């Protein structure tokens, strides 16, 4: 117990990194996943197929392999993303490690986000899309104005579980040079071998708190956009 509280700012910083990874790759995966979903249901056959191949590959590869690919293999092709360290936005600059981790998490999670969106689109009643077509809307218009707004409601629960999985997956970054919560737990435990169990429990509670916050927020959002049942 003392091990955690005497290093409390360190633990907080580690959880800060966890949350940072989660937020950046969460937004990244939502954007890229939505784009993939549009390709996946769109009228152009080759786009549909390309999105399907992407989803099949990334959903069936372990996240750790994607991390390995980006952190170990890509530098051999000449991409180590060192330049990220030199880019400053408002006095803050991300480390190449952070960038690589976000890239891996985004690539992996996008495949799941795409599938969540697609299943959401599938819940919109047939008649809605038909009506949109009947009044002469194009694919883009019926997507953005008729189907997507309704699909977004249905998509909140599956998207939430994808994002919670992402939050837990940020821990994989521990194996690639980022001292987020799990790496921090390992370091603390190595210094205080007798308190391993207590440290584990406190870090676990930290994760549970974040997971609960995310799922409560999603529940609130779901209630807010809910339409009265007819």
């Amino acid at each position, binding site marked *: 117990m003392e091990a955690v509280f005497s290093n409390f700012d360190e633990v907080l910083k580690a959880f800060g990194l966890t949350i940072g990874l989660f937020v950046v790759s969460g937004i990244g995966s939502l954007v890229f996943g939505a784009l993939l979903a549009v390709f996946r*249901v*769109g*009228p*152009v056959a*080759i*786009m*549909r197929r*390309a999105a399907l191949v992407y989803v*099949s590959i990334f*959903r*069936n*590869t*372990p*996240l*750790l*392999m994607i991390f*390995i*690919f980006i952190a*170990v*293999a890509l*530098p*051999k*092709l*000449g991409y180590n993303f060192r330049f990220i360290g030199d880019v400053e936005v408002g006095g803050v600059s991300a480390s190449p490690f952070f960038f690589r981790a976000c890239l891996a998490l985004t690539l*992996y*999670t996008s495949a*799941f986000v795409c599938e969540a969106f697609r299943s959401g*689109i599938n*819940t*919109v*009643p*047939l008649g809605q*899309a*038909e009506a949109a*077509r009947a009044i002469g809307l*194009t694919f883009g218009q*019926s*997507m953005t104005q008729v189907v997507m707004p309704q699909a977004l409601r249905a998509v909140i629960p599956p998207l939430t*579980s994808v994002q919670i999985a992402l939050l*837990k*997956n*940020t*821990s*994989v970054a*521990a*194996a690639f040079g980022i001292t987020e*919560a*799990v790496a921090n*737990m*390992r370091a603390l*435990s*190595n210094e205080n*071998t007798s308190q*391993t169990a207590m440290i*584990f429990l406190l*870090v*676990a509670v930290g*994760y*549970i708190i974040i997971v*609960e916050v995310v799922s409560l927020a999603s529940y609130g959002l779901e209630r807010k956009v809910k339409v009265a049942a007819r």
Partner: protein
Amino acid sequence: MSSSVLFDAPGPKTVARHRLYTLLTIVGLLGILAFFAYRMLVTRQFEYDKWEVFLTPRYIRFILVDGLLNTLGMAVFAIIAAIVFGLVFGVGKLSDHGWLRWLSFAVVEFFRAVPVLLLMTFLFLQFAIGDGPLSPFWCVVLALMLYNGAVLAEVFRAGINAVPSGQVEAAYALGLRKSQVMVQIQLPQAVKTMLPAIISQMVVALKDTSLGFYILAPGLTAVYRPIYQEFGNQVPAALVIAAIYIVVNLILTWVATLVQRRLLGERKVSASA
């Protein structure tokens, strides 16, 4: 809703536009592939001595036996243990005894909310390091059992609840006891609907065995390091090992779909994150 409902049969203008999109997509995809291939060429990734290792029987055996077999072994042990764990706590959540329900609820929620890697690291530090009783192999199995077991507990609970209540009432009417109703009536019928979910959970477990990398456990990801350290073939080795994972997982997903079609009729199965 089939995707074709989202758009009309295209007219001549749209056909032309779609042709343009198709062309652009092909150019884009080929561009990405070509760029990747070009970078591989420039950095000499295609050289024979970087790929030779995957044609050498000794190393094929190393990858398949030390790598794939260990990965599959961890996944199989983990999923069997997880099914037992899931059954105990899934049924526990439906118990008539309040304390058992709450205990099961707490256990399931705890292990579902905690990252597998955190569990694995804890087990490793607590029980494996130094001369602890567990090898990293079993730490991975144990961590995956706890996580996947918690997920399966929810699956089992939902599956048991989905058995029509008339079945349970009929069983009680015949004079069966509570445990008999569960074991002889509810579970056999529930298993049928749960089997696809269990198989897709196996894909998750198989993917997560790779996390053993962090705690020095054997497996496909663990054979990656010695191979590239010996041959300096980071890129080809990563491609080959990722391909093995993908093939194994696709086979599992295919089996799940087959089983589901057999038992339930058409519906798709997918892995979760």
